[in-house]
């Protein structure tokens, strides 16, 4: 696809542990286009964060054993450290879950944003002594420019009174404001792709709504791609254009949110949606997923969800599971691809031919 920004192809990231090799990401494929927000959902331990870390090549102590991560035409799995440093800083930014731990407590917020601006400021010479703040070596004009830019960025992420707040320390900020400051740090380099790993999990819902709205606005202003990782289905449903559902390190289902979250085709997606206590009628019981997520040691033979799936057959437990494209851009990795939960038959079930495509979770070709 022309405006495809990021493409993850059959990614395998492994960790070595005392119990054996952990297949944390076990053949995940998906893509993110420019100007698109893609949600990555799944239970804890399903490989969401490891996937994100693999994309910016911070998977250590894990290792990418196979697969391809292409970003804007470059293969990041083969790039050298110098290229990666550039990509990480300038093209891909990441925002982590806990803003308490990612901001330095002993520097004012404005300085931390300015530092990030300055690091990505290619136009002026930079030296270690400059960054250490040694006065004769300090490039005053460049720093002043960076500080002005920091205030501008703070304004963009809707931090009230950016001039005053720039001099404040992280502990003087509320959780939501700290997360906004982190967004400003991430945006300092004008990234093409923003990875947000559970950006609102530690926040109140009232603040969360503000941060999510901020992410849309930034996407619209900068036409950047966003990979939003969350275990909260509501957050993904309300923010994303497309969703990738992961389980056991593999992509179970992917497609436009309107389709995947309203008419899920994969039994796992359906089970996950049924778990959510929201939108439940009175006295309806929340349904629970039996069993626990699979042990990723040694990887899986067949579908990782087979042990917890109500529809599993012996075919599910061995061999490769074909990925079926039921509607354009809506892909399901399931042998059954049964009728959806609303009782209406799926396109595939109503007799239209299914196209079996390569294991892939991206948009239409």
């Amino acid at each position: 696809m022309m405006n495809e920004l990021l493409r993850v192809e059959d990614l395998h990231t492994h960790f070595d542990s005392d119990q054996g090799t952990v297949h944390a990401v076990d053949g995940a494929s998906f893509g993110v286009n420019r100007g698109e927000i893609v949600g990555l959902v799944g239970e804890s331990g399903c490989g969401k964060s490891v996937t994100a870390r693999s994309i910016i090549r911070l998977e250590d102590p894990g290792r990418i054993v196979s697969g391809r991560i292409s970003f804007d035409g470059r293969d990041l799995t083969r790039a050298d450290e110098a290229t990666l440093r550039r990509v990480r800083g300038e093209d891909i930014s990441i925002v982590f879950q806990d803003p308490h731990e990612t901001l330095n407590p002993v520097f004012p917020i404005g300085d931390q944003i300015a530092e990030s601006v300055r690091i990505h400021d290619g136009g002026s010479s930079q030296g270690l002594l400059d960054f250490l703040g040694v006065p004769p070596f300090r490039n005053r004009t460049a720093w002043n420019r960076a500080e002005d830019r920091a205030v501008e960025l703070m304004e963009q992420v809707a931090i009230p009174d950016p001039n005053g707040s720039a001099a404040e320390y992280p502990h003087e900020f509320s959780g939501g404001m700290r997360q906004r400051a982190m967004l400003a740090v991430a945006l300092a380099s004008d990234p093409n792709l923003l990875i947000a790993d559970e950006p609102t999990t530690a926040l109140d819902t009232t603040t969360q709504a503000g941060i999510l709205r901020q992410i849309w606005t930034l996407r619209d202003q900068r036409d950047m791609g966003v990979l939003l990782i969350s275990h909260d289905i509501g957050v993904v449903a309300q923010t994303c254009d497309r969703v990738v559902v992961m389980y056991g390190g593999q992509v179970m289902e992917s497609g436009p949110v309107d389709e995947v979250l309203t008419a899920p085709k994969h039994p796992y997606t359906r089970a996950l949606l049924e778990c959510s206590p929201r939108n439940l009628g009175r006295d309806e019981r929340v349904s629970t997923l039996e069993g626990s997520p699979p042990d990723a040691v040694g990887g899986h033979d067949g579908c990782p969800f087979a042990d917890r799936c109500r529809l599993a057959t012996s075919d599910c437990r061995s061999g490769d599971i074909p990925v079926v494209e039921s509607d354009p851009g809506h892909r399901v990795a399931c042998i059954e691809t049964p009728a959806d939960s609303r009782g209406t038959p799926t396109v595939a079930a109503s007799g239209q031919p299914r196209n079996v495509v390569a294991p892939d979770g991206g948009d239409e070709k």
Partner: protein
Amino acid sequence: MRASPANDGGNDETRHAPVAELRNVEKEFETSRSVLDRLLGDARSAKAVCGASLSISRGETVGVVGESGCGKSTLAKLVTGELTPDGGSVLLDGDSVGGYPTRTGGQLRRIGVVFQNVRESFDSRWSVGRSIAESFGHEQQPDERVDRIDDLLEQVNLDPQVGSRYPSELSGGQIQRAGIARALAHDPELVVLDEPVSGLDVATQATILDLLAELQRRHEIGYLFISHDLGVVRYLADRLAVMYAGEIVERGPARDVFERPSHPYTEALLRAVPSDDPTDPPPEPLPGSPPDPSNRPTGCPFHPRCPHADGQCERQHPEFKRVRTTQSRCHYADELADGTRTNNHGTDGERRPHRSDS
């Protein structure tokens, strides 16, 4: 499953006498502790809870919701006895009680607690079983203790083997279950649950909520359920109290509060919850932040953030008003519940900029 007939009558009274009751409790914390400040009378105090009243009976779940810093956890600590109120009274079975030191052993055993950071509430050098056994009374024999630990772990659907493991070896869901088992160890009538499912993923959350509902049915325990996630509270709560800046601003049967909020703050909280259905309108943020507890605004504490506020709200602190089945601390509660009060600031109706795909 958990509906008590009294709730349907739209009455705050339930079939049991309350196990615990808070009457106009106040709690302040000193923000500035220096001796000089005290001598000069400059010591400022932050009001964490102001005049909150609440009761919890057996077999019912009372949900307390609000943003962080609104005093939810302080309220819970006043019930459990971790804190002593500065004003008002805490009643246990009708007897006025203070903090831990003043409570009798029997009174202490009436209440179980599941703490907010469950993993940190377990001693990392003790096995889970030993931590659970610490809650037992002294009358139990050592061999009975082992059986009792196994029994408790089974009640929360954990393998009895978990008792010999250490907190760091358990997953988020398992440690939460162990925390619940420990809270049940002394057969409490009331369990205080402080954010019991926050930080857990949807699937684990569902199993914990299901377990809590099941335990309540079996033992007829009352729950004081504290959470900032309205979706979770909606599932479990029979009655709801909405807190803002240390005050309870709305209370009533949970279903009615959710369906027809009569306080603008409740309305804002509900609008901020992202719906699982992508076709629903997007969540709306509540601009601004809660007031500084040591410098509370005059009148209604919510007026600086309220889209409906006018001069009266700035001057006069609203008292509870009865609106159908709920009670609300808002001058315009009736109009809000009917939907006839219009928004002064016109911030409503802002929609998501655009969705790029079609």
